């Protein structure tokens, strides 16, 4: 067992976690990053297609600036966002984010005249190197910045439990390096959970292999308040076949250097969505697309798991290839590009909800436990926002560092966690494959907690999850009981977290009695701003949990209606 | 059939037997070769790394010389071929480069307009002569000679130039060898690298790489190897004794240039084909040259 002592431990190596690490390092704090995958190579951050221009950057007009802000509040967050946080974030992005990235060497794509290539329209964006692949060089830069700063990164190490001090505050993490099979303990003054937006809880999910709701599960176990778990995006343009490409999107966003964007066609060959035409304000039009799709599904002209198509057949190949990677998937499938369309399906995407935080410090309801990025329940979408969180959490932690004591090794907790994990390893032989348990959980979520839900499906899902917990979990076993590179063992550990996280999500879904943006309830089809323009908070109690609503302030943007059928709402 | 002919540097120095053999075989095949006398080196691999514009200029000049003759251009060396193809592609894809180079070529009354067809002798056999005609011309089939074809990198990669997802799928040499009566083998070194291009400063890489290829050809039962590239030949044949010393075993694997293999089947003698210039004596070949 390796024991590390440091000042701050960050769980997660994506945009938020890396930036938090770099900011803390700049602020003089010793930091260790624990990453379940490989820093800068796993999770959602690498999927950033391009970068939105906020404020008055790069020739943005006042109207562009307002559009960007409005788009964030409405289309990305359905008003379930701290607008003041959003304003601070927007200002930071305008003044610091882009210059800082470029100074560090990130290449914002230029044309041959030296102009930064932008997508035209009501909201403008740019790309790091090439559109469709901005996240890769972006995160690679972070990886190299960490390398340069010599910040220790413990990779392929899954954090499995938060460690607490006697007073209940969080002071460390327990983890497993699943390549070597060694246990890792990192003790610190503060823990930052930055495990990301996307998870892999549905049969089709954009979350990468290692994502299993760990952040939600671990935070809940130590009593952190959660918010808006039910609010989840869905990608509408993800490739239907092969299964492993469920994360590969036919990006619907406006293309750099072009007036066009991808279009969507139903099973009868009719176009039913084209962002630049149908909703130019919806720069990242995921919810708008979803609503358009829902109408098609309800009319029998598409299904959520396929039967509709997307592509660029209305464009010139050179137009798409000039600044984007969008044609690559088509060609790799042996299709003609741009003439051929590809069959697409929905995929569960960002979980807007997560751990509730104080948006000025990123501190959760548990002392010592901080959150940054997608895991937080305070906003949704965009790599810039996750990066901003990294800055805010670093400042929040640095500000509190003097008050946060170092953590002594909590021997009992460590031993207890070690035994728990050993039990999952040693129960060998003919048990149920953990991968099958995960698959079962995903299948329940896909069938019953999918795009359209109601109380009946949700309660049925709860029952199914309960069955899995009581009947399948205890029977899980691994075939190979050696510790190194044991993905079965990791699956078993993940399965437990998945069940916990899914249960919380379903309860939270039952509680929000409305539809809002991507959250669609058949039994409550209206968006209800009178009662539900509020954070749906889930608080742990002695014998379970209770819900509380915290309405959002509306200083800058207001919805402009009280109640309306969700499918008729533009966002 | 008329071709402008560009033998390259090796075919007129280290592998001068290639040029002689090619000329004799050309006569048999009815190919009229017009050698481009003032054509320079294409720059091997080194020039394009440190002097890109010099590289383009020399290569486009060669293509312009061929264009002036109004003839397609035939090559007998892989690296020359790839250099010319790359220069041509750059010319077509970059109008600014085209203008710049043509400005320089104007000084000697030359100009390239992108019309030269570049064809390695291997492709000329398929595309201009055709296998049907070739079969008619074969008078001494190489009955059962087991041959290991060694392609050499630059005639089958990069994919951007040749289009193979997997360059091992290239079967042009084997098909040809079989038409001549040979039996060809599959072996691990077929489309691998001989290491020639670093040999001038460190031949150990070439020795190690090529040693493994010859060994696997031998284990596969090959009695001779054939290659369309004199640079590969220089390692395969020219360095074979060093390879044997490095491996601690005798290989005695004769290596033929492509025109030599063709020539034998067309009835030319080994002497006419100048196999006497090889380090490894292909005396065993004669027994396969049947009737």
């Amino acid at each position, binding site marked *: 067992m390796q024991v590390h002592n440091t000042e701050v431990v960050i769980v997660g190596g994506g945009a938020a976690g890396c930036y938090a690490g770099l900011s803390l390092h700049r602020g003089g704090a010793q930091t260790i990053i624990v990453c379940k995958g490989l820093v800068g190579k796993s999770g959602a951050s690498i999927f950033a297609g391009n970068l939105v221009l906020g404020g008055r950057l*790069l020739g943005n007009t006042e109207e562009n600036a307002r559009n960007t802000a409005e788009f964030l509040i409405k289309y990305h967050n359905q008003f379930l966002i701290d607008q003041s946080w959003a304003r601070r974030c927007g200002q930071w992005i305008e003044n610091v984010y882009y210059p800082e990235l470029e100074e560090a060497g990130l290449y914002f794509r*230029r044309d041959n005249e030296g102009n930064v290539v932008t997508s035209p329209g009501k909201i403008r964006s740019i790309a790091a190197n090439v559109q469709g692949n901005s996240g890769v060089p972006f995160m690679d830069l972070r990886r190299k910045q960490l390398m340069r700063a010599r910040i220790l990164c413990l990779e392929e190490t899954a954090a499995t439990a938060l460690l607490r001090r006697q007073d209940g505050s969080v002071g460390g993490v327990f983890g497993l390096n699943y390549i070597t099979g060694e246990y890792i303990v990192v003790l610190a003054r503060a823990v930052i959970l930055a495990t990301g937006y996307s998870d892999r809880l549905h049969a089709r999910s954009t979350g990468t292999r290692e994502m299993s709701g760990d952040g939600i599960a671990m935070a809940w176990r130590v009593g952190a308040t959660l918010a808006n778990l039910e609010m989840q995006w869905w990608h509408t343009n993800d490739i239907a076949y092969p299964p492993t490409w469920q994360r590969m999107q036919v990006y619907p966003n406006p293309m750099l250097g072009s007036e066009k964007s991808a279009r969507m066609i139903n099973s009868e060959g009719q176009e039913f969505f084209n962002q630049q035409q149908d909703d130019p304000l919806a720069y990242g039009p995921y919810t708008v697309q979803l609503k358009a799709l829902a109408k098609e599904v309800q009319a029998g002209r598409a299904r959520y798991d396929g039967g509709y198509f997307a592509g660029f057949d209305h464009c010139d190949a050179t137009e798409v290839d000039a600044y984007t990677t969008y044609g690559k998937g088509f060609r790799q499938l*042996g*299709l003609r590009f741009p003439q051929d369309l590809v069959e697409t399906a929905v995929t569960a995407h960002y979980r807007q909800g997560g751990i509730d935080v104080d948006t000025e410090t990123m501190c959760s309801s548990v002392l010592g436990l901080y959150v940054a990025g997608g895991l937080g329940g305070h906003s949704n979408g965009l790599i810039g926002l996750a990066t901003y969180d990294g800055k805010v959490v670093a400042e929040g932690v640095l500000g509190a560092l003097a008050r946060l004591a170092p953590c002594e090794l909590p021997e009992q907790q460590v031993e207890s966690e070690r035994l728990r994990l050993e039990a999952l390893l040693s129960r060998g032989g003919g048990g149920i494959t953990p991968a099958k348990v995960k698959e079962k959980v995903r299948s329940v979520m896909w069938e019953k907690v999918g795009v359209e839900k109601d109380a009946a499906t949700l309660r049925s899902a709860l029952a199914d999850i309960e069955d899995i917990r009581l009947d399948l979990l205890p029977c899980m076993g691994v075939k190979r009981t050696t510790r190194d590179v044991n993905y*079965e063992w990791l699956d078993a550990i993940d399965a437990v977290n998945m069940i916990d996280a899914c249960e919380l999500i379903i309860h939270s879904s039952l509680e929000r009695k409305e539809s809002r943006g991507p959250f669609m309830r058949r039994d409550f089809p209206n968006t209800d701003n009178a009662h539900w323009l509020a954070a749906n908070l889930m608080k742990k109690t002695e014998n379970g949990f209770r819900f509380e609503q915290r309405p959002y302030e509306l200083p800058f943007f207001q919805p402009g209606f009280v109640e309306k059928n969700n499918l008729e709402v533009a966002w | 059939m008329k071709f402008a002919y560009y033998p390259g540097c090796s075919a007129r120095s280290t592998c001068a037997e290639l040029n002689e053999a090619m000329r004799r075989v050309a006569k048999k095949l009815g190919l009229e070769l017009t050698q481009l*006398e003032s054509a320079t080196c294409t720059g091997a691999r080194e020039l394009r790394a440190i002097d890109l514009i010099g590289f383009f200029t020399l290569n486009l000049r060669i293509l312009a010389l061929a264009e002036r003759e109004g003839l397609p251009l035939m090559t007998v060396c892989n690296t020359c071929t790839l250099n010319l193809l790359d220069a041509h592609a750059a010319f077509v894809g970059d109008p600014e480069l085209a203008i710049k180079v043509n400005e320089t070529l104007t000084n000697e009354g030359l100009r390239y307009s992108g019309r030269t067809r570049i064809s390695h002798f291997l492709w000329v056999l398929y595309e201009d002569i055709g296998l049907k005609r070739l079969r008619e011309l074969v008078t001494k089939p190489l009955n059962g000679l087991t041959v290991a074809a060694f392609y050499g*990198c630059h005639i089958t*990669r990069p994919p951007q130039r040749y289009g193979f997802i997997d360059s091992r799928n290239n079967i*042009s040499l084997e098909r040809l060898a079989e038409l001549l009566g040979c039996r060809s083998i599959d072996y691990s070194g077929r489309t691998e690298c001989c290491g020639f291009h670093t040999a001038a400063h460190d031949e150990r890489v070439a020795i190690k790489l090529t040693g493994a290829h010859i060994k696997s050809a031998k284990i596969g039962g090959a009695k001779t190897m054939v290659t369309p590239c004199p640079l590969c030949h220089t390692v395969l044949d020219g360095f074979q004794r060093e390879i044997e010393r490095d491996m601690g075993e005798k290989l005695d694997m004769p290596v033929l240039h492509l025109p030599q293999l063709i020539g034998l089947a067309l009835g030319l003698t080994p002497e006419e084909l100048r196999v006497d210039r090889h380090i490894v004596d292909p005396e065993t070949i004669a027994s396969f040259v049947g009737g």
Partner: protein
Amino acid sequence: MNIVPAPLGSGDARRLGQIERHDSLEARNSRLAVGDTLTVRVRRFEREGGADILEFRVPYQRAMRVLDALNWIAENEARDLAYRWFCGSKMCGTCAVRMNGREVLACWEAVEPDMTIEPLRNLPVIRDLVVDRSPFERIVASLEPWIERTAPYAGFPEPLLHKEMENASKALDCIGCMACYSACPVIGLGNLTDFAGPAPLVQLAQTALDPRNDPTKVGRALAQTGIFNCVSCYKCEEVCPAGIPIVSRVIEPLKARAAVLVPGMAKHPQILRRIVAARGRVDPGALVLGVQGFTALRNLPRIWRMLVRGKINPVRTLLGLRTAAASAARRLLS
């Protein structure tokens, strides 16, 4: 051969074999249908226990990738199979393997009816298909792959043309999958040379070919790379799933920088250029003498052998005799 086809069209001979061997994306995606069964062999490996090849029969799924096949095997037949992947969508670069002897990205490559799947070469195998990436990471870290500016940052957006970043931009497509590192025959020779290898060089090129970077720093990094050991075999380009032209857009531009920034490193190319400029064509004897100096004369048996066969011509070499091409070369390369 019984059937002799008619003469091929221009350009077809160089692609002979493509049709027969399904060597196109269209063919590789249409040769199988749902209902077909694949035969898949996987090389398994345990540090204690060694290697073993196991065979599986896998049902074809629509548009199936190699990763889908591995997932099926792990879910149905070999639950303890170890293989790395994160994104499944050609972004994270962690699922590269060898399929039928060829490096592929498992999530990107279409399946074949008959497949043997092995781990990447040139990296230590930890278990089954999982390799140790740390040798690669160590080399990359030693090259310090970040820019250090010589002039203060001008503010966003700074003056920069795409043309200046053209090659760096290609290198930025790299996802660090290491297929190229596995395919490289020079890396395959291990410690014989100090060649850094294609993957680390692509990583380096991202900043080394960036005009905003300090040339002294770039020179320092290049001096460690052994870059002139590259044999230009293009195997790296062949296997790169991101389609980066590694030789022509990364290695050669880096060689060009090394020639300028690291005195003496580019001896071979510089001498070749000098010879061609003077004589019009390469005189191999002059080249070897120029590059190796008198050590070239050590192998007397070889010199004798070559002399006897007429493969070297000392007179021509030593007298600096020129060819008909000399005047053109001198003019064009001066």
